[in-house]
């Protein structure tokens, strides 16, 4: 019973993240008619897809240790793009390529199969630029939030490209909000 609440919470998190993005887009282009009409059309289609498609049959979670990999991916990527001449796209792509070969080491182990997706989700958190992610504790907290929601959203949006990016974006926004409130 309690699992259902976590699941519901992560659905709300994903949907609200996307709507925050669309709202910011609309507010910045409120004078351009073409952009506003097209964005409204896009929003209507998204809501239709939410209602029609994503009926979850059973609630299932990822194991607990994936959170560690998400945090590790975030810290590695932010280290690479802050302290080496690589830009953040190259850093994330490099780490993603290396980790995608890890499951080939031992095809039977379940831990290794879970690694690439988790670390790739962490990479997006670590891609935040300097003026957003001011220090490592910010990235640690954002990675933790992303890891928690990654754990809870196993069956949610399954196979939809960009799910990992949405999780990372939501967690970075939440932790920068926390920073605003606390400072």
């Amino acid at each position: 019973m309690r699992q259902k609440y976590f699941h519901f919470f992560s659905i709300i998190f994903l949907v609200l993240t996307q709507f925050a993005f669309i709202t910011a887009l609309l507010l910045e282009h409120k004078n351009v008619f073409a952009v506003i009409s097209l964005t409204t059309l896009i929003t209507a289609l998204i809501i239709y897809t939410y209602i029609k498609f994503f009926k979850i049959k059973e609630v299932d979670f990822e194991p607990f240790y994936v959170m560690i990999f998400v945090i590790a991916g975030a810290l590695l990527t932010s280290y690479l793009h802050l302290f080496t001449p690589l830009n953040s796209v190259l850093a994330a792509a490099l780490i993603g390529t290396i980790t995608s070969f890890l499951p080939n080491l031992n095809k039977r182990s379940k831990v290794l199969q879970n690694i690439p997706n988790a670390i790739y989700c962490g990479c997006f958190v670590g891609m935040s630029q300097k003026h957003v992610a001011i220090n490592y504790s910010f990235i640690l907290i954002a990675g933790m939030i992303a890891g928690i929601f990654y754990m809870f959203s196993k069956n949610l949006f399954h196979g939809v490209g960009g799910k990992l990016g949405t999780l990372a974006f939501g967690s970075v926004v939440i932790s920068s909000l926390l920073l605003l409130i606390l400072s």
Partner: protein
Amino acid sequence: MLTTISIYLTSILGAFLTFLVNTKYKQGPVRASALLTLIVAGVCFLFPKIFSEDIINQIPWVFFGSSFVGMTSGKLTRNYISIIFAGIVFGFIYTVSPDFFNGYGGALGTAACISILVVIGINNLIRLLKASKKKKRLLKKVVLKS
């Protein structure tokens, strides 16, 4: 103008190539997205004078974002046309993406997720329309026979 066209072309190409490597050559979504981006961003990093500076600065970001569109599993979108259309939608969202979220990690992923959800919705609508047309045709046949 040239920059806009190159953004749209890159996003279509990124989505399509990633989907091809992901589903047809069965390399898995993460490797397809990361490896292709590594190649494109590496070429842009090593040879910064192939295109003009404006385009070179944009291409790695657009390609990285559009490769998330191609990470969709083959069960959800079967044909290549819908992936190409999702690439076009991603190009539109990228060109108007809000400056407020500039530098936030994962904003590209959110844009990709929105564009793929739009395409899934359109696909579902088309399927519904076809089904209702078929129903009407069958009903007419039944009425005529009786």
